[in-house]
């Protein structure tokens, strides 16, 4: 696995950060200058030195799309962590059994901006060779396949904030169909005023905590005031179990099921709000796909964005699983530390979910000391860890929902050889 998150870059740093409840949210002066109501956000600490470990000087001169940079770092890290050979020789034959589904949101926004200025000034000739590969939606999967020599399906999916989780489900299905042995799955997204402006105008971003950035993202809290925008990338190598065992790969866990659907903007669902029936059907679809009962879920890594949607999500989980009070699974929100990383959210949060499963802990869900009373009516407050807890976990569910009324849910299980 690999991860580029606002509170840490790299798997070990990330594991430590989430166990310690470390926030990656900070005040961003540029957003104040541009009169954003929300002036806090999550930008991964990617330094020039770190970039130099992954990209040549020429690539860095041309590759300006932050999202693609993040995605490549996470993807390369995941590939190496899986024990697959790297760097991959340019002259070698592609690995026909290995592919990539890597989702993206607005990963090349800054490049689009500079390109538009040149075109408007009549300088189309000066756009050069690198604009298209950074602004096409599939820019990230295209870059990764070139770096790693991937010869199976190479594609980018997009389903707003459920993108990352959906990418993993798509890779899972490709392997289940017997059409690939290895799928590098993940997602990435960029940051900054051009990516986040539309959300600010919609008034869905947090605008009350500009002077206390680390308290701004407060999923499950009564004083949650909108989501905090984040960015980054998460990646993992999915592999056919026999294939992984044969080559002695490091195994973090098993993906035993996943389900994707849409609420169709009906029954209360809209472009921006989820249809509760759709979410509950998605939860039940994932359970059926994993062939487990609702009582088998030990913990949930929620979508939980720090909006009014949090109450609705808890109610939907409770109804779909028919579990409440202290019978409800443990649940936490990674967004409390890293904000909402949009298209990158599902993959970063899936990496966190699997780390918790493999290392036997639950990270704190910070900033929810004042639990929302409507949530407390449904589940016992003890279901939400305020501090890191060491706990053996067998099954953890990961949910992601997105604009367009789309849902994706994954079921991860600990691996015992």
């Amino acid at each position, binding site marked *: 696995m690999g991860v580029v998150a606002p509170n840490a870059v790299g798997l070990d740093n990330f594991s430590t950060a989430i166990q310690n409840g470390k926030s990656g949210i900070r005040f961003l002066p540029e957003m104040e200058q541009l009169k954003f109501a929300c002036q806090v956000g999550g930008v991964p600490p990617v330094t020039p030195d770190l970039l130099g470990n992954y990209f040549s000087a*020429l690539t860095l001169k041309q590759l300006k799309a932050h999202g693609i940079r993040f995605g490549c770092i996470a993807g390369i890290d995941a590939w190496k962590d899986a024990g697959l050979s790297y760097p991959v020789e340019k002259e070698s034959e592609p690995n026909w059994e290995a592919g990539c589904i890597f989702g993206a949101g607005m990963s090349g926004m800054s490049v689009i901006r500079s390109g538009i200025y040149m075109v408007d000034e009549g300088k189309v000739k000066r756009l*050069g060779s690198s604009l298209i590969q950074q602004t096409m939606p599939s820019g990230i999967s295209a870059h990764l396949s070139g770096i790693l020599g991937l010869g199976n399906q190479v594609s980018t999916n997009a389903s707003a904030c459920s993108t990352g989780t959906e990418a993993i489900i798509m890779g899972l299905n490709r392997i289940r169909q017997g059409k690939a042995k290895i799928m590098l799955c993940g997602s990435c997204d960029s940051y900054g005023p051009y990516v986040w402006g539309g959300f600010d105008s919609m008034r869905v971003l947090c605008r009350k905590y500009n002077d206390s950035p680390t308290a701004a993202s407060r999923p499950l809290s009564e004083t949650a005031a909108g989501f905090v925008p984040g960015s980054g990338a998460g990646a993992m190598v999915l592999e056919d179990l026999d294939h992984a065992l044969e080559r002695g790969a490091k195994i973090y866990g098993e993906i035993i099921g996943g389900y994707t659907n849409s609420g169709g903007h009906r029954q209360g669902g809209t472009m921006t709000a989820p249809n509760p029936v759709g979410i509950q059907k998605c939860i039940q679809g994932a359970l059926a796909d994993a062939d487990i009962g609702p009582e088998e879920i030990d913990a949930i890594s929620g979508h939980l964005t720090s909006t009014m949607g949090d109450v609705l999500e808890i109610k939907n989980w409770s109804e779909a699983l028919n579990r409440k009070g202290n019978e409800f699974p443990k649940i936490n929100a990674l967004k409390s530390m890293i904000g909402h990383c949009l298209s990158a959210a599902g993959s970063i949060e899936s990496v966190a979910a699997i780390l918790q499963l493999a290392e036997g802990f639950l990270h704190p869900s910070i900033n929810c000391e004042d639990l929302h009373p409507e949530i407390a009516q449904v589940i016992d407050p003890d279901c939400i860890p305020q501090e890191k807890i060491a706990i053996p976990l067998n099954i953890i569910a990961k949910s992601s929902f997105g604009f367009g009324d789309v849902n994706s849910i994954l079921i991860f299980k600990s691996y015992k050889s």
Partner: protein
Amino acid sequence: MQEQEIIEKLTTVIKTYVEDKEALDGITPETHLINDLNINSAHLVDIILDTEEAFDIEIDDESAEQMLTVKAAVDIVSSKLSS
């Protein structure tokens, strides 16, 4: 501008696009940008843009298509500078 100066400036432009720095050893006027220096053909466009900027000249399409060796590039830049 002296030819030597043109060569030095051009080499700096071209170097940026050479991933395999060893290929730069023994660069001669006959050195082919794609075949000898393994430059990605898509980057020829960028080399032309950078050359235009470095020498403050405009390279027309016909000349651009011929810019495949160091010598051809030097000749094109020299003629544009003198015209």
